[in-house]
């Protein structure tokens, strides 16, 4: 649950969530405007020749919009984001919009398998641990998840690369790159990043899902069903999982931006995969402002949008939510 309350104004639930979402969107875009446009580097002198005259300076400042009032500049940034009119990249001169639409599918193809597997396997292991709570299997899984939580993403990536992609290990997969044109080549390039993503998320996921399941398994109706001899599989999937859908959905929705952004940022810059993460990484190292401000603003907007959808989904899954 997001724990956010808009004081009871008597408005319908969906309208309240919508207003809340819009206020968050304004906040997110305002922060990225403030950091990257307003306090960002002054580009005036990069565009000017040597010994510029003061009229040249003010001309350039005018075309960059630096002479406009604060709120107007924020409004312009907002308009750029909403109309996807994102300008040109500083380093390549390509349109930011076309860079993003070209690279986004690659990033999704890259992180989706690891994300889905990480959640499914985490959920299954969490159930298993919860079912055998306090027994050796539970202890084993929980110890393994603490180990998993103690390994840095970067160590997993480098370690897997050594083990699977170099002559010092099995040398089965490519060291870097992304030459994908059909399913076998996709599997050839996606396997190692997927394993890395799986390993880095599995410890956290298993622990989280176990905690959720443990709470639900202790409920009386589950105990009753157990006493009636319902099979564990039916019990877990039909009764326990169904009743713990809300924390599960929240978890998944909240981890989407983490996995998509940090997953693609690290995996792509490490393995040289030309997705949105590599574009962002290059923009960070070269200080490419048009790309950075577009990526930060848009991911923030999309995240808030996803949150709003989740909230509305909740009210469909569980009507009690609307009465908070």
């Amino acid at each position, binding site marked *: 649950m*997001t*724990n*956010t*309350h*808009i*004081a009871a104004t008597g408005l319908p639930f969906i309208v309240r969530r919508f207003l*809340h979402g819009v*206020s*968050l969107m304004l*906040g*997110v875009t*305002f*922060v*990225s405007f*403030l*950091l*990257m446009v307003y306090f*960002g*580097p002054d580009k005036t002198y990069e565009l000017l020749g040597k010994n510029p005259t003061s009229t040249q300076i003010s001309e350039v400042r005018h075309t960059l919009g630096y002479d406009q009032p604060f709120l107007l500049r924020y409004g312009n940034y907002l308009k750029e984001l909403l109309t996807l009119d994102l300008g040109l990249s500083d380093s390549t001169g390509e349109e930011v919009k076309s860079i993003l639409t070209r690279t986004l599918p690659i990033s999704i193809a890259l992180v989706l398998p690891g994300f889905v597997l990480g959640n499914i396997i985490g959920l299954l292991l969490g159930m298993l641990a919860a079912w055998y709570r306090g027994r050796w299997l539970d202890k084993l899984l929980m110890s393994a998840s*603490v180990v998993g*939580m*103690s*390994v*840095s*993403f*970067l*160590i997993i990536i*480098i*370690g897997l*690369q*050594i083990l699977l992609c*170099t002559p*010092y290990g099995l040398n089965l997969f490519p*060291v870097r790159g992304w030459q994908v044109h059909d399913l076998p080549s996709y599997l050839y390039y996606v396997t190692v990043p997927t394993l890395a993503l799986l390993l880095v998320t599995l410890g*956290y996921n298993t*622990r989280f899902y176990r*905690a959720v399941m443990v709470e639900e398994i202790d409920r009386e109706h589950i105990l009753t069903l157990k006493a009636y001899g319902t099979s564990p599989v039916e019990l877990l999937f039909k009764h326990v999982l169904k009743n713990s859908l809300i924390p599960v959905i929240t978890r998944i929705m909240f981890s989407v*931006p*983490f996995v*998509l*952004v*940090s997953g693609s*940022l*690290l995996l792509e*810059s*490490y393995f040289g995969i030309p997705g949105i993460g590599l574009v*962002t*990484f290059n923009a*960070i*190292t070269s*200080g490419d*402002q048009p790309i*950075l401000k577009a*990526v*930060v603003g848009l*991911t*923030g907007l999309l*995240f*808030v949008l996803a*949150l709003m959808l989740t909230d509305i989904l909740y009210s469909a899954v569980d009507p009690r939510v609307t009465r908070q």
Partner: protein
Amino acid sequence: MTHTTWQRLKDDRYGIGGLFIVAFFAVIALSVWAGLLGQGWSEVSGNRWESLSAAHWFGTNLLGQDIFQRTLFGAATAFEIGLIVTVFSIVLGTVLGALAGWYSYSWLDEVILWIKGVLDSIPFYLFAAAIAFALQGNRWAMHLAMIITFWTTTARIVRGEVMRIKQREFIEAARAIGLPDIIVVFRHVLPNTAHILLVQSTIVFVAAIKTEVILSFLGLGIQDGVSWGLMLAESSQEVLAGHFGNFVAASVALFIMLMGFNLLADALQDALDTQRVNS
């Protein structure tokens, strides 16, 4: 910490193990700060990529610097980052969380929750990049980015706890005798959240150290000194050529330290009997 809590912690073998690991690294960090260990971390004391020897326990790196010295110095860097980020973000989270919880459902609560919502909506590494961009190479940009974003979890937990505590009778009594809000909050409410803050501190500490590794790899990390994150970033170029010194030293040190903190956090959570905070 009460007597029974300490007893419970002492009976937890894993927790005590974690405590020893943390203490071990803390001693190394203190010795580095005191100038006793790891002082030769930047000296070029050998040839490039020397293997293990009596002079260079973990070998040398690309520039011929001693990897053992750099690993020791990295422990101090990790503690510096962990301590700074933990102290500031916990204090910030506690104050804002207490305000939001004490004045729950007021406009102040709404504003604090809104700020928290906004910060939670920006993916962290992008936020760190944006802060670094705005501060243009300031050496505290990384710490600042972590502090600004890490307080939100603490605030959420403290807010919930304060809302629960303020309905208890002893708080009612304190208000009934006319104590001002600020005294009630600081003397009677917040001390009752100390156990949660202790656990939360270990969690934030782990998060800060792990985050530094990624940020250093992305070029947004520390700028002077050496950290395990920088060593790992360095090693990403070396492992393909078969030089594993940096990688093994930094990842083993990092893993053991994080393991220690995670075990300690779990044991504290069990000993203090707080609700699990798994997020």
